[in-house]
């Protein structure tokens, strides 16, 4: 049984379809790139898997369960937004994660905090957007989860930090886990993908192993992405 199974998934916002009849299966131990233009439903798909959107048609199963209390204990989700309260300090966020997630490794989190040169006592409201994103990534990657859902984890950081973040993700990723990473910065991250899922508007454009894509098209995933979506814009 695949760790994540999606069957005939449909989601619309105000009668405007975002995902139509999407079916996917993702096995454990895979790092999957979820790619597509803005508004194609990448974030919506991750939110549904994380249990943040519950009104949809079709079926999502994570380790055999529909998104709910059981799956939330298995899924470590990083949203695009900053979700921590401004008054909190990194040490408060560690307390919170330690209280609710038995798989949270506090020592690992403190170690990563030091590596990113963040202070445990600094209120989040005084941090830059990039610092806040780093802290959230530390929290998410300090869990020994079965599924990691990362939505634009490098959206607000400088190019030098992107590489450090990728190393952090790879170093802390559990090898038997599934990681789905939604991003626009394909060039920076495609080296870590095992598989790429390209979502278009209302359709699954491509779902294949990275090696197969490179072999079939003779190009990098970033180049294939540009070609595919350049065509769709010109149409």
């Amino acid at each position: 049984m695949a760790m994540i199974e999606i069957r005939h998934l449909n989601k619309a916002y105000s009668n405007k379809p975002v995902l139509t009849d999407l079916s996917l299966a993702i096995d454990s131990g895979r790092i999957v790139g979820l790619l597509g233009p803005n508004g194609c439903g990448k974030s919506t798909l991750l939110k549904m898997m994380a249990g943040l959107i519950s009104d949809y048609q079709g079926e999502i199963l994570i380790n055999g369960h529909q998104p709910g209390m059981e799956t939330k204990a298995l899924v470590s989700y990083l949203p695009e937004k900053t979700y921590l309260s401004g008054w909190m300090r990194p040490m408060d966020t560690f307390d919170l994660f330690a209280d609710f997630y038995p798989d949270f490794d506090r020592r690992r989190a403190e170690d990563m905090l030091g590596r990113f040169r963040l202070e445990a006592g600094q209120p989040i409201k005084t941090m830059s957007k990039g610092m806040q994103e780093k802290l959230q990534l530390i929290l998410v990657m300090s869990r020994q989860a079965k599924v990691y859902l990362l939505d634009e984890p490098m959206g607000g950081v400088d190019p030098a930090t992107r590489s450090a973040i990728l190393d952090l993700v790879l170093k802390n990723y559990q090898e038997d886990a599934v990681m789905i990473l939604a991003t626009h910065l394909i060039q920076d991250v495609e080296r870590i993908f095992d598989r790429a899922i390209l979502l278009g508007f209302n359709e699954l454009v491509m779902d294949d192993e990275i090696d197969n894509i490179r072999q079939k098209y003779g190009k990098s995933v970033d180049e294939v992405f540009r070609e595919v979506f350049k065509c769709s814009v010109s149409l």
Partner: protein
Amino acid sequence: MFSQLVKHEFKATRRLIPFIYLVTVLIILSNLAVRQLHMDWLSGMLLVLLILLGIGEVMMTYVVVFYRYYKNLYNSEGYLTHTLPVPPRQLLTSKILVSFIWLLISYLVMFAVVLTVILLKAEEYDQGLVQVLELVVQSTGLNQASVYWIAGLIFAYACLAILFLMAQIFFAITLGNCSRFHHLGLGGPIVSYLGVYFVSQIAILIGLIAVPLGLTVEDHVLKVVPRGMAAAFFNGQDFVIGLGSIVVIIALTVGLFTWTARLLKNHTSLR
């Protein structure tokens, strides 16, 4: 997990709310301290400030707990709250419990403000606080047991009123943030609240008149009787205060909280 939710709910709200109470208590103490100074302008100013704070601290507490509910569940913080491995029912119950405790304290602080104002005014007529309260009790014409009974009833009704308002607002915020109302923005919760308020008022009015349960005074004793206000209106019987509205309010409060928990479980949709 429930105790952890309560702990973090208190942690998130304890920075502002107790500060409001502390300021109010300080103004109460200042009022008591300056009464011996015979500085009328200062006493007058502090008394006005105390009355404003007495009203303001309750309103501010309501604003804080309702805004906290919205922010923690449907604003950016919702992305964390809704991914915690806890049942939505526990999430809601923790917020109800902590909000209720803060609001109850805010009413107790307001009660202290009222007593302080009575004390200060009574002293102007060389009366003590106890004497004034005894005068109030005597004017009701009730015996002592009935007075205690009515005081307990008022306290219970105040608790119910807090819970009922929380049930209406929590429900309106939750319903207004379902995906079908996303296009309305802030209008979603407002329209939901107006709808809930309108339906609740009609139900309460029907309960007040139609449910055969009421309070009446017989021989200086307060009694519960199996008669509603309709009996007094239409049959010319003794006047009773209808208690049917309380039954309806209890039913609405339980119903709205249950519905809110169901919406949280089945219709969550973060923007």
